[in-house]
């Protein structure tokens, strides 16, 4: 029996009606270990205009590099207070802000650990399907050997790596450019 996956359709402009109840922009909490980071940024369209009706969903491992999911069979500790899921709509200026911890390394298909990263879905009016991207971390030696980053032409890898922002510890900037010369790398995933 082979069925075909249902077609995607846009979330449209009014998705907050359905999604707001599960908004979560702070993944930290009591008992959650790891380096606190704040990711701030903006979603921009092909005219560099902010996108006020976009939604990010993120998924990440805990600081030990373990996903809260049954298919992660690694012998690493789970933390009950850390689920790894965030849902963040952009504001009227197209901006978003996520507070979380830097995830640990998880295995890659080439047998090497992947560099710490967060996987991201981008939804918006105008997007008939979600876009998939990743957030990596600055000053991270593992980035150089990362499986997914190495699928990307070197000139564009920077769009996936957050930048340090201001002087505050853990303050990072990462933007989503939907279209144009500085376009964020999106994965076929």
């Amino acid at each position, binding site marked *: 029996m082979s069925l075909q*996956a249902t077609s995607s359709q846009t979330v449209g402009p009014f998705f907050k009606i*359905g999604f707001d109840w599960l908004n979560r922009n702070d993944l930290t909490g009591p008992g959650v270990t790891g380096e606190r980071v704040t990711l701030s940024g903006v979603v921009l369209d092909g005219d560099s205009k902010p996108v006020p009706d976009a939604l990010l969903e993120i998924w990440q491992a805990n600081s030990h590099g373990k996903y809260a999911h049954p298919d992660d069979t690694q012998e690493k500790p789970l933390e009950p207070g850390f689920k790894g899921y965030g849902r963040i709509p952009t504001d009227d200026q197209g901006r978003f802000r996520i507070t979380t911890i830097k995830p640990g390394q998880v295995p890659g298909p080439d047998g090497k650990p992947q560099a710490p990263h967060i996987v991201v879905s981008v939804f918006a*009016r105008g997007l008939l399907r979600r876009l998939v991207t990743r957030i990596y971390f600055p000053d991270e030696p593992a980035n150089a050997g990362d499986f997914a980053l190495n699928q990307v032409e070197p000139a564009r890898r920077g769009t996936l790596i957050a930048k340090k922002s201001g002087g505050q510890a853990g303050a990072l900037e990462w933007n989503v450019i939907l279209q144009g010369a500085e376009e964020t790398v999106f994965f076929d995933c």
Partner: protein
Amino acid sequence: MAPIAGYRRPFLRTQPDYLWPPYRSSIKRAPSKPLVYLPHTLSEVTGPTFEKEIVDVKACDLTKQHSAAPLGERIIVSGRVLDEDGRAVRNTLVEIWQANAAGRYLHKRDQHEAPLDPNFSGNGYTLTDSDGRYRFVTIKPGEYPWRNHVNAWRPAHIHFSIFGPAFATRLVTQMYFPGDPLLPFDPIFNATADELARKRLISNFDWESTKSEWALGYRFDIILSGREATPMEG
């Protein structure tokens, strides 16, 4: 860890392209560069799971979220969430949102000149059961105009969001109603090239779930990407 089996990629033409000029909002928001192919890793074959505790039992009945019943035709929308091998997707979160019977969303940016209904918020959610089944009670949403082109009208639809077992299976779609005369003219519905795939977005009228003296039933099954049989090698 043992090698990981990824999830299957979509069949040709069964998913919309990002750039689809008849849908005007896609023109400045679709990526212009090709997507970068990424084999699935542990990060994509895992994903958020939700427990029963987060689901309010009232959340699946959109007609009982206020002090009185909403206006409009009460309907039952139910179906199963399956993978491409026909296996039930259990305990997965299904979320819906929609316009009211007059075609108006409870949203500050919806300026359509149609009344809001104080007894209808238009959002619901539930978890599928052990057979992958879900069920919502709601009212039939109205059609409404939008500014995509001259005299543009959206067919009646309910937005659906489904997680499935992994980040790779995440799906957001829209369910339509059988016989809607607006379907042939809707750029969003028609963004999917494959005709059969498009038709699967249209729910079926369903005697089985129709409740005598009370509400018509519509059935909408949702199929998520299936899993590859063999693990990928590194």
